């Protein structure tokens, strides 16, 4: 177990180093010149050259990377070219909003997904089953941008139940959480349905039934825990899904998280922010996967770590 954890940790570190190099290379290859962006359209060639020197953009690639990596090891993500603030400050100020949104999305996808999957499994083959599976299919395939705008229009503008975007109260959280959670809910509904159908076929369920236990007891005491556990173990992997989802959802709902920060930075080629957000989300995904793998054997004893 300990050697497994050590190996996985080492792997994770290597993955993160790899990601930092690849991202840096990709951004370095961009034909846009950050010094020119900072200097603006009225600057003289002299001003631009000056800024390039101050930022170290005139150094060869490997020196630029080493400079960045050195800062990184000291916890310094650099300074945004255009926002004129430390990248770590910007990310720290926005991370709580993103975490809150993810918590909301996890709640939505679990409640919605598990309930839909459970009902579909119990009513297998019926119109209800078909309807729910169609809905989950739409949830999985519809672009989040479209879902978000539709939710805003229906629930905020027409019905007036929720505020039109923004951040602050519980009611602000509902629609973006739903939008971000719907994709996962679709997956969970499908997984829960097949997992439940599997479990219901098992011998111990038949035994429980033949003992004369009530249908509800069989379902909630024997079937559900066994069907739910493998599904729950997937949450860690969802983090990757969320990281791409928040870029869209936060922009639509005006949610002040790191997804919105990344989106603005990408549009304006603010390389230090793009690097910073990429690294933070890569960390989150790597940790999420690691945790998911490590807790799997506790949830399902049939899984062994090797």
């Amino acid at each position: 177990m300990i050697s497994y954890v050590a190996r996985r940790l080492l792997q994770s570190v290597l993955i993160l180093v790899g990601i930092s190099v690849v991202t840096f290379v990709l951004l370095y290859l961009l034909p846009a010149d950050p010094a020119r962006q900072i200097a603006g359209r009225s600057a003289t060639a002299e001003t631009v050259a000056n800024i390039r020197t101050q930022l170290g953009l005139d150094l060869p690639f490997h020196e630029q990377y080493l400079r960045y990596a050195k800062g990184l090891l000291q916890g310094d993500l650099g300074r945004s070219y255009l926002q004129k603030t430390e990248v770590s400050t910007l990310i720290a100020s926005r991370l709580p909003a993103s975490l809150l949104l993810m918590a909301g999305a996890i709640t939505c996808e679990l409640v919605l997904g598990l309930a839909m999957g459970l009902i579909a499994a119990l009513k297998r083959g019926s119109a209800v089953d078909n309807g729910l599976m169609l809905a989950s299919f739409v949830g999985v395939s519809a672009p989040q941008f479209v879902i978000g705008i539709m939710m805003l229009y229906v629930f905020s503008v027409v019905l007036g139940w929720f505020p039109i975007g923004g951040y602050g109260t519980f009611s602000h959280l509902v629609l973006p959480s739903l939008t971000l959670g719907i994709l996962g809910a679709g997956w969970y509904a499908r997984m829960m349905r097949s997992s439940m159908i599997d479990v219901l076929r098992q011998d111990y369920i038949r035994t429980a039934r033949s003992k004369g236990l009530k249908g509800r007891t069989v379902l909630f005491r024997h079937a559900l825990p066994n069907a739910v556990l493998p599904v729950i173990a997937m949450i860690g992997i969802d983090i990757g899904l969320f990281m791409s989802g928040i870029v869209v959802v936060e922009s639509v709902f005006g949610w002040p998280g790191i997804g919105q920060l990344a989106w603005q930075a990408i549009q304006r080629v603010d390389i230090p922010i793009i690097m910073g957000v990429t690294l933070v989300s890569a960390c989150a995904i790597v940790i999420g996967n690691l945790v998911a793998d490590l807790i799997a054997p506790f949830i399902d004893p049939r899984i062994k770590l090797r």
Partner: protein
Amino acid sequence: MKKFLLSGVAAFALAMTLAPVAGAQEIKQGGSMIVTYKDDVSTLDPAIGYDWQNWSMIKSLFDGLMDYEPGTATLTKDLAEDYTISDDGKVYTFTLRKGVKFHNGREMTADDVKYSLDRVTDPKTQSPGAGFFASIKGYDAMSGGSATTLEGVTVVDPQTVKIELTRPDATFLHVMALNFSFVVPKEAVEEHGADFGKHPVGTGAFKLGEWTLGQKLVFERNTDYWNAGLPKLDQIIFEVGQEPVVALLRLQNGEVDIAGDGIPPAKFLEVKDDPAYSKLIVEGGQLHTGYLTMKTTMKPFDDVKVRQAVNMAINKERIVRIINGRAVPANQPLPPTMPAYDKTYEGYPYDVEGAKKLLTDAGYADGFETELYVYNTDPNPRIAQAIQQDLAAIGIKAEIKALAQANVIAAGGEPDQAPMVWSGGMAWIADFPDPSNFYGPILGCAGAVKGGWNWAYYCNKDLDERAVAADSIVDPAKAGEREEAWRAIYMDIMKDAPWAPIFNEQRFTMRSERLGGPDAIFVDPVHIPVHYDQVYAKDVQ
């Protein structure tokens, strides 16, 4: 220039009389408004801020020696109580207004003016506007790093500052009205260092109350403001990170007062044709031209006949229809609201046969293949497609390259890439209302360098000399002569046809019903998008 000034004043006077409340003195101060923007506010440092959203915010937090009459492009004195210009046009002496206080309570003096100009031209500040001050004596030593103070700026006494120039510069008073010249207090800049932009201290009508990164900024009224009666509001709340479509929905719902990024193209007709909203929309001109550049250093655009043929091939009316009439067709580089615009010039006609004939004369009877670079956000790719179809009609096959803004700009600045660029979304909006501002970086030799903004790489030494000569005419009595000189320069550019000017964008600002003020301040040519100091709240009247 003179004629333009008069018409501007007249328009403002008219707007004032049409306003629901007759005089400024009758308007009660108070109330607040909410303004939304999509992008976060990067900085409120006047030496650095150069974005759509922070430009006007900075104007409300800080003041410069000069400003413009609200709603017009007419220069007026601001922190300067008075000024004199020497006969040779090289020495400007400003007398400062007495009793002007910074938000920290200290009185502003001539030392602050000098400090601010030294700071903006210091390469360490990385100001995108440093180049505007190039005519001040000692600028080269500053930008070269061999001096730490501008030799040409002298503090005569606490109320007087003298600025010497190396050459007469007719645009200098405009430069003194630019955000980059705004006065900052040394002690506050030094206290916050690189974070001054997040802790701005100025002399302006508003002061920064609170700033939650990525969410909102609150401006509070500066109760000590020297210009009594301003600002008219007690508070402005800026909410950032809101998509224009969502901002519009909130505006329609009465939750916000101004959508700072304007009406999104997709919703434009719907809102404009709805009587409930159309009365809330103010339309105004903008110092903007959208143009198609042709790289004069690349074949076949090195041939003037080919460039003229392109000018004649494009159906500008159709392009204006494509963007729902949010612009007027253009035939010259300057927009119609700019002094020196030539009203009598008819431009190249839309004439497909004539264009084909020119191409044949140039030896391209069968046309040729080329590339058209365009910024990849709506409506620019659609406009590029229209241009592509028009060019195809005369045999030119243009492949569209739709890229991110920074990439288009980078390719445009190379002498052997991006043979054609459609400027939409990156186009020139004047920094100040003067014809010279449309020349240097985008049509002059100085901009025709790697990484420059002269994407046609058009360099005409004779015109460069005439531009310098025109800007040396500083005597206000000879303003007409200067305007005539600039008009002739732009007309000669059109003969060479490095661009095909396509349209001048109009501005449409939608405001909530509870905001008051003359229409002109909602489409102010300088305080973009609106003049925050002048807006008042009807619900406190």
